[in-house]
């Protein structure tokens, strides 16, 4: 399609050709895809997008592929729910949930980024895909990779919970359980990525992979009737998702899909791992690494690579950040399920709990339009709610036994 100019270092601006590379050779900064927005503007329109299939590739002009989409033809375009019940509880006028608990095929927003990564891996001619992961990413690479016909190597720490291992193993990748912690696994993967010609989705394919997160933002705008929200609340681990949601808004303006953006971007983190939120709240741009300790494991990056950029976006847009305790995370997961019927993973609890705090403190105005990004499904991390849910009513198989319970239920006991 010819809309990509190349890769560009975010730090020093040095330019590179489109290749499976991810670090600037000069200053070690991350490389990012650079597009030719003038040519995209001529080639994209609301009408053209609306005529396409309801998947994330409807925004393909703004995604970094050369040919046709090859992976993830059923991924993306998840519901944007108008959350009337939750809005009432939180005391706001207009609230939406961007519901990525239901992305095809593995129920997290990682299916978006992996769709782009594996399509790009095909374009580069790789036959093997790989990743280092503890959860959602492992599931997505295992599943998408199976259907796309790749050999797959998934690296995990050997101590991982059994339920998470099964959710990858069922797709029959080569699951490599490393005797070591997450840091050890990642260090090993960097070495392997240097030696073998494989597509490591979150290493050498990262500049392309990360662009997939923009599709959440494109969808929010389209689903609001080609309007931007006043506020968007995004969970932060590396900070990449937040920067890409903002990038998607700016790109839609750049190519003429929307005219203005008045959106404020808000970051959500767990108190047990809040290097980005702390920097924002302190008003500094120095991200101090932390040692994570939170139930929101998918957000537990103590040294977030895009933290600086995420904090900049929040500052630039006039947003804010909040961090929340494990108890607040659990309460918010339950609140979301009880009010809107959405069972989010712990990261979703973080996002909602942070949004709630910022509404209560007045950082998010009650009369504005707010979108909360929920990025993964709670069925995968059920152990987080152990001991925190209601109990069933145990009865004998008799009408009398049931009616005894029913009268208690009706009395509100």
């Amino acid at each position, binding site marked *: 399609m010819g809309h990509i100019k190349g890769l560009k270092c975010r*730090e020093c601006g040095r330019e590179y050709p489109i290749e499976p590379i991810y670090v600037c*050779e000069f200053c070690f900064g*991350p*490389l990012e895809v650079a597009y030719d927005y003038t040519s995209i503007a001529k080639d994209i329109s609301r009408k053209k997008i609306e005529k396409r299939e309801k998947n994330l590739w409807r925004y393909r002009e703004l995604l970094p592929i050369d040919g046709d989409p090859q992976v993830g033809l059923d991924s993306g375009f998840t519901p944007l729910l108008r959350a009337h019940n939750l809005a009432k509880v939180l005391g706001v006028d207009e609230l939406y949930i961007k519901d990525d608990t239901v992305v095809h095929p593995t129920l997290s927003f990682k299916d978006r980024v992996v769709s782009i990564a594996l399509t790009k891996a095909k374009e580069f001619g790789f036959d093997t895909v790989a990743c280092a992961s503890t959860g959602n990413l492992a599931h997505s690479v295992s599943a998408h990779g199976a259907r796309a016909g790749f050999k797959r190597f998934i690296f995990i720490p050997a101590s991982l919970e059994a339920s998470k291992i099964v959710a990858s193993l069922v797709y029959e990748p080569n699951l490599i359980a490393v005797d070591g912690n997450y840091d050890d696994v990642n*260090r090993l993967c*960097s070495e392997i990525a240097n030696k073998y010609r494989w597509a490591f989705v979150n*290493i050498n394919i990262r500049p392309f992979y990360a662009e997939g997160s923009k599709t959440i933002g494109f969808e929010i705008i389209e689903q609001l009737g080609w309007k931007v929200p006043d506020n968007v609340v995004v969970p932060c681990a590396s900070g990449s998702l937040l920067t890409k949601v903002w990038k998607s808004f700016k790109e839609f303006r750049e190519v003429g899909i929307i005219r203005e953006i008045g959106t404020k971007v808000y970051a959500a983190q767990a108190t047990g791992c809040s290097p980005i939120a702390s920097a924002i709240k302190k008003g500094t741009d120095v991200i101090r690494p932390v040692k994570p300790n939170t139930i929101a494991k998918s*957000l537990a990056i103590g*040294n977030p*690579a895009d933290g600086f950029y995420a904090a900049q976006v929040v500052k630039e847009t006039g947003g804010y950040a909040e961090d929340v305790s494990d108890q607040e995370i659990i309460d918010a997961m339950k609140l979301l399920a009880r009010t809107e019927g959405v069972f989010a993973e712990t990261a979703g609890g973080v996002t909602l709990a942070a949004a709630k705090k910022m509404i209560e403190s007045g950082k998010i105005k009650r009369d504005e339009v707010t979108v909360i990004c929920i990025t993964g499904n709670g069925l995968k991390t059920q152990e987080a709610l152990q001991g925190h849910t209601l109990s069933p009513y145990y009865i004998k198989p008799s009408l009398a036994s049931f009616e005894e319970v029913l009268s208690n239920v009706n009395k509100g006991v």
Partner: protein
Amino acid sequence: MAVKVRIPTPLQRLTQGKEEVEGKAGTIMDLVLALDKEYPGIAERISENGKIRRFVNIYLNEEDIRFLSAEGTTVKDGDEVSIVPAIAGGGRREAL
């Protein structure tokens, strides 16, 4: 006895292939500037305007200097300093 400085592969071209070089005691920035005298070009690769570049991590005896006093961290003879480029994206862990 001097300071032991471990050089990452991408910068070893500047140190004639040496994985480990000797540095002088002082602050981290003193050390970087002294290294640059011996191995010209190394300072601009890892620092800019007196600050360590964002995607370069420096460890003093295995501890990230950002947990200490950043560029002002004092290094003494016998210490070990490692220069480690951060892996772009994800830091050390995969997640959002």
